[in-house]
């Protein structure tokens, strides 16, 4: 408040007078200005007066041993005001003033340990006092147990722990003045974790421990960590100063391992796929075995696809169906060529006989039945007087009946060599396969010796073909009809080679006999077989051109003669009627020939 005095009062001292005068002068001019200022500066319109009412902000105890109260002063009222804090405890009316105004700063009161009692209710009031008056604040009741607010935790550190599971280790210390060791104050902590790039922050309650782990830190991120604490029943502290941690860039081991495994697996799969593609056909065969197609000889599926049925069937047919088999139904025929011992009109009558034979030869009966025989006659005409060569050909017993007529060639002036040809007329039917003929060619011109002296030379026989020369030829060098052996007809008996046989191997398509030489052992066997199992008849001579003199011949037995009447062909029917004749013979009798041709 300003006291205005319009007029200076009379002062006894001259100095005082002077100062007053001076005062008056300055203030006289300034006073209205001051008044204006004062009035303008106070929009409330109040003049200077007692101070405004202060306000107690808060009282706080950091460790439950001391506490501090702070107030907000009210308006000063234009004058210097002083504030004073007064308190009294419960149950006592004695008022005490704040012991310490400075420690806690301005407008605060600090109660140290001496003045602090827990579980005691304090009634605190702040009074503002100025020259004109004082003003009291509202009182508050404070119990220290309820106003505990500690300082923030200290020494917050963040470290990165490496390993299989890296994590951030956060450590801190309790606020330095709080006594938790004696159990007086129990603090609980809380973390605030924030990633710098992310605006979201996470709150983690840590309990009473002083460390915390943040698992799975994101590489490359910067983590900001703050910690605060709270007593059991009190207020949260301020956040501590943040701690920063930069997580280095790295790929966690397990991730890299997965990547490695993925690459490896894909590589293996690639190789497998490549191998599969290479072996496509075999894999396909393994999983889907091909359906076997029809196995018909000569069946051409391509032809079937083309759709030409005639070709298919012709192909099927022309393969030689019914199948022929080599070596089956072997017809062993022994062709004997014997030298005529008597002069007989046979040579002259031969052609007739031949013609007769030819004429009479019926259609050659060809059959494949067992037991039928083949007759063959081979006659060799010899124009020489030396002898006739007759080629007797006796078919094997088990061969089909084949008849053939033989044609003789023109006698050569040189009677030595004769070609024995057995020709088959065209009228003759085709040869039956499987007949084996062995021709024995007896060389005439020999002295009438015993049959032992007769030398036979094998002669090839081709009953079916007319020109058979190709198969066998007897050239002048010898009478040999087979390819293999060429026997030189020698007059001397000793020079005669032993009998050699040919075996008809096959009859080819041109009705040619394909012969092969039979080994001696085989021949011997044949003879034996022939003698035992088969009876062969040996034609000794031809009588009257229609009579064959058969002799049963054997290695041991001597010849015996028997006569058969009639041509062989004609005899066919009569043969069964003369069993005795055959039996009596000691020569070769082909029982097969005796049988009726079927």
């Amino acid at each position: 408040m300003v006291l205005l005095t319009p007029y200076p009062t009379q002062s006894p001292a001259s100095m005082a007078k002077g100062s007053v005068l001076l005062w008056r002068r300055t203030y006289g001019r300034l006073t209205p200005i001051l008044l204006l200022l004062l009035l303008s500066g106070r929009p409330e319109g109040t003049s200077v007066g007692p101070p405004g009412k202060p306000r107690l902000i808060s009282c706080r105890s950091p460790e439950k041993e001391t506490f501090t109260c702070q107030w907000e002063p009210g308006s000063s009222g234009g004058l210097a005001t002083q504030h004073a804090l007064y308190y009294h405890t419960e149950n006592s009316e004695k008022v005490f003033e704040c012991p310490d105004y400075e420690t806690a700063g301005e407008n605060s009161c600090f109660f140290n340990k001496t003045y602090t009692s827990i579980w005691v209710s304090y009634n605190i009031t702040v009074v503002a006092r100025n020259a004109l008056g004082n003003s009291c604040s509202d009182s508050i009741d404070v119990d220290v147990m309820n106003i505990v607010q500690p300082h923030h935790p200290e020494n917050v550190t963040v470290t990165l722990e490496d390993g299989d599971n890296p994590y951030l280790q956060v450590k801190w210390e309790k606020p330095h003045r709080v006594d938790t060791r004696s159990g007086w104050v129990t603090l609980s902590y809380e973390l605030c974790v924030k990633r710098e790039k992310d605006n979201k922050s996470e709150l983690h309650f840590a309990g009473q421990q002083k460390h915390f782990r943040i698992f799975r830190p994101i590489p490359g991120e910067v983590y900001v960590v703050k910690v605060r604490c709270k007593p059991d029943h009190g207020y949260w502290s301020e956040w501590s100063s943040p701690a920063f941690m930069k997580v280095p860039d790295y790929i966690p081991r397990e991730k890299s391992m997965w990547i490695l495994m993925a690459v490896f697996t894909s590589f293996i799969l690639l190789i497998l796929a490549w191998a599969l593609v290479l072996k496509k056909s075999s894999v396909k065969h393994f999983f889907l075995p091909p359906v076997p197609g029809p196995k018909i000889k000569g069946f051409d599926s391509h032809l079937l696809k083309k759709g030409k049925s005639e070709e298919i069937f012709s192909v099927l047919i022309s393969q030689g169906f019914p199948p022929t088999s080599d070596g089956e139904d072997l017809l062993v025929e022994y062709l004997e060529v014997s030298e005529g011992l008597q002069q007989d009109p046979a040579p002259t009558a031969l052609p007739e006989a031949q013609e007769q034979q030819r004429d009479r030869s019926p259609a050659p009966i060809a059959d494949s039945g067992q037991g039928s025989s083949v007759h063959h006659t081979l006659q060799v005409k010899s124009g020489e007087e030396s002898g006739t060569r007759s080629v007797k050909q006796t078919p094997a017993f088990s061969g089909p009946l084949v008849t053939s007529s033989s044609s003789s060639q023109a006698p050569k002036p040189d009677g030595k060599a004769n070609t024995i040809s057995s020709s088959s007329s065209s009228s003759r039917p085709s040869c039956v396969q499987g007949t084996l003929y062995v021709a024995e060619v007896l060389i005439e011109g020999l002295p009438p010796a015993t049959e032992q002296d007769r030398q036979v030379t094998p002669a090839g026989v081709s009953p079916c073909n007319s020109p058979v020369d190709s198969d066998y030829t007897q050239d002048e060098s010898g009478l040999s009809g087979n390819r293999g052996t060429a026997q030189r007809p020698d007059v001397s008996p000793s020079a005669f080679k032993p009998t050699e046989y040919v075996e008809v191997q096959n009859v080819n398509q041109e009705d040619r006999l394909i012969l092969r030489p039979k080994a001696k052992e085989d021949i011997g066997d044949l003879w034996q077989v022939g003698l035992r199992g088969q009876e062969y008849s040996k034609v000794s001579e031809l009588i009257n051109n229609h009579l064959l003199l058969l002799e049963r011949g054997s290695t041991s037995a001597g010849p015996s003669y028997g006569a058969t009447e009639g041509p062989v062909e004609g005899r066919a029917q009569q043969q069964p009627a003369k069993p005795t004749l055959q039996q009596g013979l000691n020569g070769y009798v082909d029982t097969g020939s005796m049988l009726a041709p079927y």
Partner: protein
Amino acid sequence: MFRKLKGPVIFLLMFLDVQVIVGSTPICVHGHTGCQTLSLADLFDRVIQHSARVHGLSSDLHSEYEQYFLPSKNKISKINRNCHTSYILTPNGKENAQRLAGEDLTGVILKLLLAWRDPLSQFHRSMAQHEDFTSFSGNKALEMSDMMHLLGMISNSVRGLISNEALGPQASSSEARPMNDQQLLYCFRRDSNKIQIYLKILKCRIAPEQGC
């Protein structure tokens, strides 16, 4: 809101009783046969947890009461803060509490516990009858009565544990000053906090393994 009192009172009983029945086997401290042994630290921890819960509940009760029944602030400041347990000399500071011997501190705790048995039951009865509390359900009243019963049983058993000298003078139930509910709640809140702090001091002095 008074339902919450049931829990804290039971817990009060628990840390009065040395033998706590857990499941089928009782827990003994000294390792008697047939008992499940707990370490002292564990036992203290249990008790302290219970006391903390008690105090929390009492604080909630008090604040709710003030909010519900006494909206005017002026009334609060003028209430006489004389609790019926004021005669019990309790250390008011850390140094004072640490200066006390363990036995003495334990005696103080027990005294406090005993002193609250009757007022709580009284409060429970008045809560049921008071017309202001008709909004509370009958269940809460029942819980309160159970709590009082348990408290009475334990106080009788605790009487045998300590000598009569340590207990000191006790205020009998007839001499108990009538307290209004608000004051009672306020005093209970304070005393439950005292019990909790004293127990913690005891624990950190006797078994300082963890949490000290």
